[in-house]
């Protein structure tokens, strides 16, 4: 039971990371975390460290790639960018997500109307 829930959360985070990289181009861990927080209008305040587990998973699946570069403050940082395979996965997942969201929306409306 608990496992399933965390899996959904993990999947969600992974999807958000992918989406962020797709929209913003190469980013380092801090950048990704910041961006997700901003977009969610600070609703989603995560332990920024959790982003790294997500990054490892995405790397292992070959959906993103990482390369060392220099950050804004001239520190050595790892920049991640989405791969072609990652984009394909993203569009598939987005579609899937939207379908689920649509269904959920309709179901919830139904409940309200009652």
């Amino acid at each position, binding site marked *: 039971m608990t496992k399933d829930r965390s899996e959904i959360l993990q999947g969600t985070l992974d999807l958000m990371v992918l989406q962020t990289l797709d929209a913003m181009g190469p980013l380092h861990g801090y950048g990704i975390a910041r961006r997700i927080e901003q977009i969610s209008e600070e609703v989603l305040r995560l332990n920024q460290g959790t982003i790294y587990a997500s990054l490892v998973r995405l790397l*292992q699946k070959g959906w993103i790639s990482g390369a060392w570069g220099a950050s804004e403050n001239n520190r050595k940082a790892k920049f991640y960018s989405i791969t072609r395979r990652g984009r394909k996965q993203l569009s598939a997942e987005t579609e899937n997500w939207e379908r689920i969201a649509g269904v959920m929306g309709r179901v919830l409306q139904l409940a309200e109307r009652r």
Partner: protein
Amino acid sequence: MFGWLRVVASRIRGWFTIRRLDEDFQQELDSHLALLTEENLRRGLTPEEARRAARVRLGGVTQLRETHRELQGLPWLEALAQDLRYALRMLRKNPGFTAVVVVTIALGIGASTAVFSVVDPLLFRRLPYPQDDQLVSVGYLGPVDNNEFNVVSSYFDWRQAQTPFQFITAMRPGGECDVLIGDTPRQVRCYAVAADFLKTFRIRPAIGRDFSAEDDQPRAPTVVLLSYGFWQRAFGGDAKVLGKTITLNEEPAQVIGVLPKTFEMPQLGDIDVMLPARLDASRPRSANSSSFLRTFARLREGVSIEQARDRLRPLFEESMQKDVPVELRSEARLVVRSLRDRQIHDVKRASWLLLGSVIALFLVACINVANLMLARAVARRRELAMRAALGAGRGRLMRQALTESLMFGLLGGVAGCGAAWVLLRLIVNLAADQMPRLDQARIDLRVLLFALAGSIVAAVLFGVAPALERPRAEFLFGGRTAGTGRTVFRKALVAAQVAISLVLLTGASLLVRSLAKLENQSLGFQPEHVLSASFTLRHHRYQPTSAQITFYDELEARLKRIPAGGSFALSDSIPPRGSMGRPYSNMRIFGHPPLAPDGGMVEFRRVTPGYFQTMGIAILAGRAFTESECASGESPVILSATLARRMFGNENPVGQQIELDGNGHWCPIVGVAADTRNNGLTDPPDPEYYRLRMKGSDELGASGVVLFRTSLDPAALVPWIRKEFAALDPSLPVTVETMEGRVQRFRERPRFVALLVGLFAALGLLLAAVGLYGVLSFLVAQQTREIGVRMALGARPRDIAVQVQKHVGSLMGMGVAAGLAGSLVLARAIRGLLFEISPTDPISLLAAVTVLVVTAALAAWIPSSRAARVDPALALRCE
């Protein structure tokens, strides 16, 4: 689709570079922290606060690194290493338990692999001919020979009219040939075969060509194929041998080819030279019908052996009318059987018996492993519960149980390989010449793996089972409940062991009893203090019969001079084998009506007067031959008791005249001798008569056996005998052996089989005892508290012991009942291997049960006496 594969690959890569990945990640985190700190500074926090807030935002660095590491590497591999270390520690901590399990597995694997390796080439492995399952041996089976044979005239008939075979081919019985290569004379094994012999077996010569139809014409010049081994020995493997001419039995013969290295004669005979049989269909039928052959055939596609037999039968009946003497017809029958059956003829039953008993042993071993693992699992319940309570996941516990079980399996497997090797050596040495194809016995990898898998499955199945059970809190307080379900299961396992062991024991005791009968039977002659020297004269040196006569005369004169301190005789053959027999019904008694036309064969030997004294054969009536008769023109005959009874009933045979082979020559009967074993040791003796070896007779034959009865040490005589032979003909091979040794050879296979089955039975018994001991010890340990209570309430130690013995009784009762049933089935199956012992021999059954019960009682004694010694105060306090 292959996403998970990519993940695994990346993880494996990660596992190897974990250190670098760690450093990289640390750097990544550092820079992340720095960026967060700067952000906080921009917000106006003090540097100190900024750094603190940054660390809070990021989360615990140590935990992040831990997670990162787990994601990158192969955590289960590390867990495995941990499990292995733990398992090894456990194995070392319980050396006794470990040793028993490992030895059990090793025995099971070793014995089954070794025996399978020996019987596999006999029972299962393909014969070295393409499509070997189409090959059959065909022919007449009659009292003349143990194997089917054919005669030339019938072979020609069948060849012409048969329908079930693609080919039918023939070979003459093998024999010694004299070969002259350059100036070196050699005696070699040669076989004369039909032109399509090799084609039938789908064998092509390694070099050169096969025989052609022209080579096989009656008067064609001799051509030969050499065996690979002979080619190597005699010509050093020189390919230029093709076209060379050698001298074979005084005739030139051209070498046309060499047989393949792996070639085997279909009846497994040794071969050096193969030549065309050149059978002549134009010879009179009477001549061809007394010329013997072995015939083999290749079935047509889709024809079964049964169908072939049915389709051949009319042909068989027809040619039998022409070729088989009327008096033998009722005893001749048609045989069509697979080549494999022909080859393993007399060891088939022994092979299956050995295989069966070793499978039984393997089962007992597996059950034992299962039982031991279960016992251990129960004993460790408490530990498992403790570990679960401390936070070990069930998957983790199971994985650990699995690792441990596998360790046992692996250790046992390694030891089993060693045991298999040792046992195979042992069997090969024991069996000597008693099993064919022993040189091909190799440790069979498939079987080794199969046996290994079997015992590992047993170990794993029962080692892991307890981990499947949800650890219950009450186990933490010292397993009060015995888990009755599992105890019943374990008892059933032990009962099964007892049953299998009993079957093995019965088999062993039947075989041992049969062997004892074989050893102690009366042979009809006294082999003690008798030395025999046998030889076969070479064809080319003794071609004019006068040379043979001179040889025998001189030999006799020379050997008589040896101071053996006993008697001396010369014969053409000696028991326990006969010579080629003659039909009983060919004989006639002077003044009597012809004999009944049935009655099989009669053996006969030509002997010198000293034969009966030397062999220790009793003369029951009349007298033995005398020296003076040797030169007289008479042909006195001595009958064996069986033959005398059969021909004359209660009449006195001495003084009667009989005709031996329808040639009008009447021979006076001068005596009746006791029966001897002349048909091997196990078959009832054939009737037999003796004729006197006449001085200067040309009927002596090329084979001879010299016999000495001596009061000296036989070994001291051997050089004397050899010297005298060498003086006569230095190139003549002579086999000198004691009569006892000769007889002993006939008992070697029964002894070998009895020994191995006995060994397996003993091992099975030992394992069953270990199993019984284990279960009882476990029961006693489980019931310590109960026993304590009972003793506190006044039970005497004896009552407690009786209580334990009751368990033994119920176990043994079930096991023995099932085992007896199995024993009867087994005994029926091995009836053919038994000599003068009924398969339901009560003594054997009783012996087996007694041994089993005594062993069980011994195994039960320790746990039951331990139970009886339980101190109630201690037993109750320990809870």
